[in-house]
């Protein structure tokens, strides 16, 4: 099942009891959205292919104490409407949840206009955002439930494609923490830290000798989880992997998060290069070509020696 369907199904379930929930789309669909629209036509707002107006409309609805979800393809929701996000939910502290679908190279068949390789850094810089990048359906479901229960200005980054389950699953305590660590924490291990789809690639990259590593799934990168620092303060080396261009990617976020608690381990960033990608070949092809193959991720961990 797609992450977007998991998320929207949770909203649909809640809508039958809560008339204050609104779902806005800039002409972006989902099988689950067809059901939502059919069941709750008054609470679904088609905004046209107008991400900027959608955010402004969302602000108006939120000013009237409604719980508002806006939904669009990641590159357009993030960069096209970023000033509306600042001036609406940002400046007025409005509980608008932005559901951004197709992060990274998710729309690899479409080309660079449809890639979202800069959205993370852009939205990190907007004051007051909470940022989530789930790697599986369980986390996606927990985020949706949380945003329905305690609405806030949030930027939720969903993958275009279905993602495998994580094992063990993210539980309620993990959700509160904002991360989950896979593997036993030991001083001499290297920590592999990532989020979203690419976290699965990290798990696969180190499968053969996974006991030498711990894997940190940082599904909530903002606010940065303080508890993570406490748990990993004995680890010296962190490889941070992100399907974003390097400026302001997850490695910057981790560095700043650690720095705030005076923790300065060695951090190696593995991200996409600073360029746009016009090559054809699909997501795996592009990841392999531009340094994010599982082999390259594994090789990067050897730079700590």
């Amino acid at each position: 099942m797609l992450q977007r369907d998991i998320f929207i199904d949770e909203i649909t379930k809640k809508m039958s009891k809560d008339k204050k929930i609104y779902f806005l789309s800039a002409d972006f669909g989902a099988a689950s959205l067809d059901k939502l629209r059919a069941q709750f036509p008054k609470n679904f707002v088609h905004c046209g292919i107008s991400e900027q107006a959608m955010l402004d409309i969302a602000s108006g609805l939120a000013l009237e104490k409604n719980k508002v979800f806006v939904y669009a393809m990641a590159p357009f929701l993030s960069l096209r409407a970023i000033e509306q996000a600042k001036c609406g939910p940002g400046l007025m502290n409005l509980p608008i949840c932005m559901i951004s679908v197709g992060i990274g190279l998710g729309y690899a068949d479409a080309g660079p206009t449809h890639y979202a390789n800069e959205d993370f850094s852009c939205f990190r810089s907007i004051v007051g955002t909470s940022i989530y990048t789930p790697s599986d359906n369980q986390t996606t479901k927990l985020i949706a439930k949380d945003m329905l229960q305690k609405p806030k200005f949030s930027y939720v980054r969903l993958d275009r494609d279905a993602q495998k389950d994580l094992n063990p699953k993210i539980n309620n305590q993990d959700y509160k923490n904002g991360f989950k660590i896979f593997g036993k924490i030991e001083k001499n291990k290297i920590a592999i830290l990532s989020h979203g789809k690419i976290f699965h690639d990290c798990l696969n990259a180190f499968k053969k000798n996974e006991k030498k590593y711990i894997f940190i799934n940082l599904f909530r990168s903002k606010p940065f989880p303080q508890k993570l620092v406490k748990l990993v303060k004995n680890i010296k080396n962190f490889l941070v992997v992100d399907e974003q261009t390097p400026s302001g990617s997850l490695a910057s976020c981790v560095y700043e998060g650690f720095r705030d608690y005076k923790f300065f381990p060695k951090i190696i960033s593995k991200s996409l290069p600073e360029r746009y990608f016009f090559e054809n070949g699909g997501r795996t092809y592009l990841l392999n070509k531009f340094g994010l193959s599982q082999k390259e991720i594994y090789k990067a961990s050897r730079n700590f020696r």
Partner: protein
Amino acid sequence: MQINDLESLAKKYRREIFEKFLETQQGHPGSIFSMMEIVVSLYHGGFLRFDKNKKEFLDKLLISKGHATSALYPILRDYGVISNTEWNKWGKNNSKLRIFGNTSIPGIDITSGSLGHCIGSGAGMAISYKNNNQDKKVYVVISEGELYEGSTWEALLFAKHRELNNLTVIIDINSLIILGNTTECVNLNPIKDKISGLGIETHEVDGHNIDNLVSALKTTDDSKNFSCILANTVKGKGASVMENKKNWHYWSPMTKEEIKKTREDLK
């Protein structure tokens, strides 16, 4: 209130704003003076309904041209929404009042300043009122210059599609933006054809004629359609030193003679 009373109030508010700007040496008098009759008509013409007990307005007014929001402060003070103490503190440290309005200021319904946002936000409010069967209206005042923003047109299309008749947009057409006349910068004319071309009910009025404004506002209030009022105005209206002068978008230093002349004009 009679039309004459509203005209007197518009003059009074211009005087008070001028003295404040003179004191603080900042503000956007040109843009405020061009829309003064519009906001006086809305507040004192009975369009924005006031709950005396709660000291709040039932209907909403969003000043999309946020640099002119301070036009509302003396009006809100007269209604007791902004205290005299706060009014007197304006321009001093820790004052709530500032050039651009924000929602921390009593009676200000939106944080604005960046142009092109408020028709969309007004539409969101209007949808909420309709869905909840709330008898409330939203008025949005935008500058002519906001017609350069794509989001303005996105929101106009949306409001028309939904036929949000509890939303009225008033466009303050003073023909000047920072660098000059709109016809010379990037021509917006004919504005009426462009707005009505979207199928929007459009009324064109003299934006300084309160009788005209009140009449148009009554028509839009009774309409079953989403509607726009095109208010033809003069930037800096009422102060001959400022009228139709692009450099009076912002506060400019004044000579003693100019100050004297402006005070006389605004009597």
